[in-house]
């Protein structure tokens, strides 16, 4: 491969991955992890124990932020990036969507795991079909389907288009799940459970909650960015393997003697 073709490639319309902190340390990720540790310490040691639910309530500080970010932020980004990709066809948008989906599935898994752990001592059952858990479960399935779909397609263009379509349709699904669960619950009164109090948290708990939300959000962005860069590096490695064809002969068709 000649040096001119490498230069040619960097000048193409598809920009390479951001190389800002290549080889260096991912400061954002470190800060996010530290923030998370600080939050956990604060939640365990420095936040009062809730009267009705006991120590188990502290899982709320993991459960709620994960739910908010995993369901709305992460999936929202998947859907919006997907829609933009279908319009602009910039492969970076697809990479963002894929990264957000991978981090999002982790966050929703955390919600689905912490939910029962929290629920068992308080509600007496491992699982309850309450609105948020049900929606989370469905979005988890959509995420998993999204990732399996991506895994089953090799052609990057096809993969990007199909994922984008699935992302947008998944976003359309959300209100229908909401509606179905709401209607189901109003017509089928469920056993009354102790609804964990969210809006009316006393100040110390509220602070911890916001700390948790901020650190999970920071972690989310750090992970997505790291995943995005990794995807970019992997793609450019694949492209190195495809030989650039040297320019050969005339570009216009001229009749030859």
């Amino acid at each position, binding site marked *: 491969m000649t040096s001119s073709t490498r230069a040619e490639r960097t000048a193409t319309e*598809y920009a390479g991955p951001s190389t800002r902190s290549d080889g260096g340390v991912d400061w954002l990720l470190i800060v996010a992890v530290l923030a998370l540790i600080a939050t956990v310490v604060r939640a365990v040691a420095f936040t009062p124990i809730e009267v009705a639910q006991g120590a188990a309530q502290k899982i709320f500080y993991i459960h709620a932020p994960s739910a908010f970010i995993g369901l709305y932020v992460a999936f929202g980004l998947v859907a919006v990036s997907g829609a933009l990709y279908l319009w602009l066809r910039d492969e970076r948008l697809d990479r963002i969507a894929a990264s957000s989906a991978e981090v999002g599935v982790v966050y929703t898994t955390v919600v689905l795991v912490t939910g029962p752990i929290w629920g068992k001592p308080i509600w007496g059952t491992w699982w309850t079909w309450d609105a948020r858990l049900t929606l989370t479960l469905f979005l988890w399935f959509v995420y998993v389907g999204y990732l399996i779909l991506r895994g089953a397609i090799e052609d990057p*263009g096809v993969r990007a288009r199909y994922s984008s379509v699935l992302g947008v349709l998944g976003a359309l699904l959300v209100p229908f799940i909401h509606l179905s669960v709401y209607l189901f619950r109003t017509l089928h009164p469920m056993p009354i459970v102790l609804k964990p109090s969210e809006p009316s948290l006393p100040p110390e708990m509220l602070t911890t909650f916001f700390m948790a939300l901020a650190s999970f959000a920071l972690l989310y962005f750090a992970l997505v960015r790291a995943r995005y860069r990794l995807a970019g590096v992997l793609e450019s490695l694949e492209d190195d393997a495809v030989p650039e*064809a040297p320019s050969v002969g005339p570009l216009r068709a*001229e*009749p*030859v*003697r």
Partner: protein
Amino acid sequence: MTRPATEPSLPSETPVVRGDSPPRPPAVEVEGLSRRFGRRVAIRSLTFALHDGDCLSVFGPNGAGKTTLLRVLAGLLRPTSGSARIAGVDLPGGAAARAVVGLISHQSMLYSALTALENVEFAAKLYGVSAPRQAAFRALERMRITDRADSPVRSLSRGMQQRVSIARAMVHDPRVVLLDEPYTGLDEVGAAALTDALHALKRQGAALILVTHHLGEGLALATHTAIMREGQFIEYAERGSVELDAYRDAYRRAVGQ
């Protein structure tokens, strides 16, 4: 082959007027056509034009972009840049362009459960041919396969399927016929039927683009020849000036580079 002293034939020239007919837009007009898949460039800034009655035979090694070129002209792929026009109609999105194109590709594009006649009749209806059943029968006649008209395609040999596929491509009397290695699998009868059909189409004023590995067959029909390599035409000639042996040597040289 030496470079010409004659002027190149560029698409910007006025179309050749044949006989008393008023000037029609060129059957195929390609200008700066490029097509890439991700970062792989399959067609690199191609420019040429074909008029009624022309037959362009395209030779070249595998992976040269010949099939991609046909798929773009058939309306199956969008150009990444540049333009392609069929009978004056721009290709991306041009249903009117697709209506006058017939495609014969590597795969038969037939429904194996339906009969030969049903397959060709279905195609005739898709293209809005009046009296589709009779037109289908006539198309099968031209390819000398009417005796198997009512056999399900899956019961036909590869060569017979190829003949049905060719009949399907021509049932609507296309103005441009794109043929991707059409002689593959054909026996003597089939090959003779195909050659006759192509000559007839040429006489009627259709333009043909024939991709083939078979120099003899390609040159027999050609008014123009091209050798394609890595997305470009590296040799382009008018047939009258080319002899089979000389061409074979030139081809080997061009491809062996």
